[in-house]
């Protein structure tokens, strides 16, 4: 904490602050630091320190039972040659690729619909938002019931009522359908959130732009593709970045509905990391996986922002 950051009045750097000025500064700064202390102490202890600690742990064989031993990059090499690590990565990518466009398209459709002057519009908006405020735990338990292989309402609807499927499907027990089933639930849960963000975006577009386009003879579709979509770009960028991070971070629904099974077909990076750390008590390896994962998320987010910004600028 050098005093060189502080500028003397008039903008010239204080080269040799006099004793009086020093103590005046100190008297000014001490209350500010005291004011920051409680929040900062908690934050540094439970957020920033763990972040650094995880990095250190990732270079150790660390299992709480015996003294930890330094093993260099061993944990990282192990992760990169671990087929289950790659399988988990593939799974979260598939989950993200299904859920992000799914939620955004449906969310935008819902926003356009509920941006119209409809009666009971507020009621509809509240209903659409219900899945968002319901916790992942409850939603996962609810859908485990809906997806039940013997007498679940979904099987009844698709087989007995609509005759779309030939017989009852074991949605969460079949490696082919387990991940798409969880992803469908993810879309169901996230659509309302996308709707609210898109509604805010839509309301920030001035009405006059639409009026002018109407006068020029632009139809509804043209107005949508030439005005609405381009002007929603900042909203879209925000959603893509946040949703991709969320999708890659999937943990709770998988943990509750399938525990990563059947045969790792729904394993996500975080469920795999969690199992390694807390079931196999291999904390160093878990820490290495989480650091690889963090680096990946960081790179993806930066890339998304760059690509989406660039297209927005021209």
């Amino acid at each position: 904490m050098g005093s060189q950051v502080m500028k003397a009045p008039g903008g010239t750097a204080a080269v040799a602050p006099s004793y009086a000025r020093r103590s005046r500064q100190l008297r000014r700064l001490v209350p500010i630091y005291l004011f920051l202390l409680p929040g900062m102490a908690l934050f540094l202890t439970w957020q920033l320190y763990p972040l650094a600690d995880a990095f250190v742990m990732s270079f150790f064989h660390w299992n709480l039972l015996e003294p930890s031993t330094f093993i260099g990059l061993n944990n990282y090499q192990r992760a990169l040659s671990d087929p289950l690590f790659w399988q988990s990565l593939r799974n979260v990518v598939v989950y993200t690729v299904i859920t992000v466009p799914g939620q955004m398209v449906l969310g935008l459709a819902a926003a356009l619909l509920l941006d119209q002057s409809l009666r009971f519009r507020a009621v509809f908006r509240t209903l659409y938002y219900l899945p968002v405020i319901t916790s992942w735990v409850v939603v996962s338990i609810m859908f485990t019931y809906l997806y039940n292989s013997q007498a679940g309402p979904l099987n009844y609807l698709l087989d007995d009522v609509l005759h779309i499927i030939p017989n009852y499907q074991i949605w969460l027990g079949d490696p082919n359908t387990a991940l798409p089933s969880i992803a469908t639930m993810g879309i169901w849960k996230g659509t309302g959130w996308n709707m609210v963000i898109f509604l805010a975006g839509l309301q920030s577009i001035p009405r006059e732009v639409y009026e002018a386009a109407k006068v020029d003879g632009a139809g509804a579709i043209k107005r949508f593709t030439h005005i609405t979509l381009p002007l929603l770009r900042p909203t879209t960028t925000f959603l893509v970045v946040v949703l991709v991070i969320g999708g890659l971070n999937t943990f709770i629904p998988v943990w509750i509905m399938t525990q990563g099974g059947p045969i790792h077909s729904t394993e996500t990076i975080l469920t795999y990391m969690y199992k390694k750390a807390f079931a196999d008590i291999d904390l160093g390896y878990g820490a290495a996986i989480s650091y690889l994962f963090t680096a990946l998320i960081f790179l993806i987010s930066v890339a998304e922002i760059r690509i989406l910004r660039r297209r927005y600028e021209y």
Partner: protein
Amino acid sequence: MARRFLGKTTLYLLAIFGALVLAMPFIYLVSTAFTPNAYVLSIPPVLIPAHPTVQNFIDAWTTNNFGRYFINSAVVAGSSTAITVLFSAMLAFAFARYSFPGRTVLFYGMLLTLMIPTLVLIIPQFVLAKTLHLLDSLQGLVVVYSAGTALNVFLLRGFFEDIPQDLADAAAIDGAGIWTVFWQIMMPLARPALAAVTIFTFLTNWDEFPWALTSISSGDNFTLPIALQLFQQQHQTQYGVEFAASLIAVVPVIVVFILFQRHFVSGLASAAVKG
């Protein structure tokens, strides 16, 4: 005119269809919670139970201890929310209105943790909590939840920056220190932003699952999310009780949401615009 009417009708039908798809699981949740267990999962599924009962709620609340878990959740979420909101308001206020050495570093340090999945921190948090004897205790939950201030600081800092300088100046002339300005001037002005942040924080803490799963091991300390998950694992066929317990966990959230809907939407929108 007729075309206009048709268009409107289509819009209403679409809106109702969407609402049905989104609400259907909840309708099942509620109806199953009021269905005697013997009739759960019948083909065809029954939406309105023939013999509705509140027995599932009684079973959940008493014999299955969800009354206790509810109180645990309320205590943990309530106290950690109070601490988080107060501390994050203080941090945000200092970051927004005062200059001091280290300000930039500390603020960006906080922003950095926003990019990091909370589960990435769970291994070292577990080791630290073990060292400090905070595992398997409600205090351990409160401490870790209370440290999650970064998002609030980010949102509130913008709000404090927008408050006109003359208000703070007037107080400064009176010789008021940072505490007085914060409590007497800034906190009252920040009430709408604080309300939004409070609601978000409360819901996050009420629903928090991974850290509770990791740190809590004895039944007396269960919060609702982990109790629900364990109940589901252990009694896979008792959907009536399970759903009654789920409703006990969800209804407070829905009530809070409907009461404070205004704050929700404005809070979300500001996050999107700032992001």
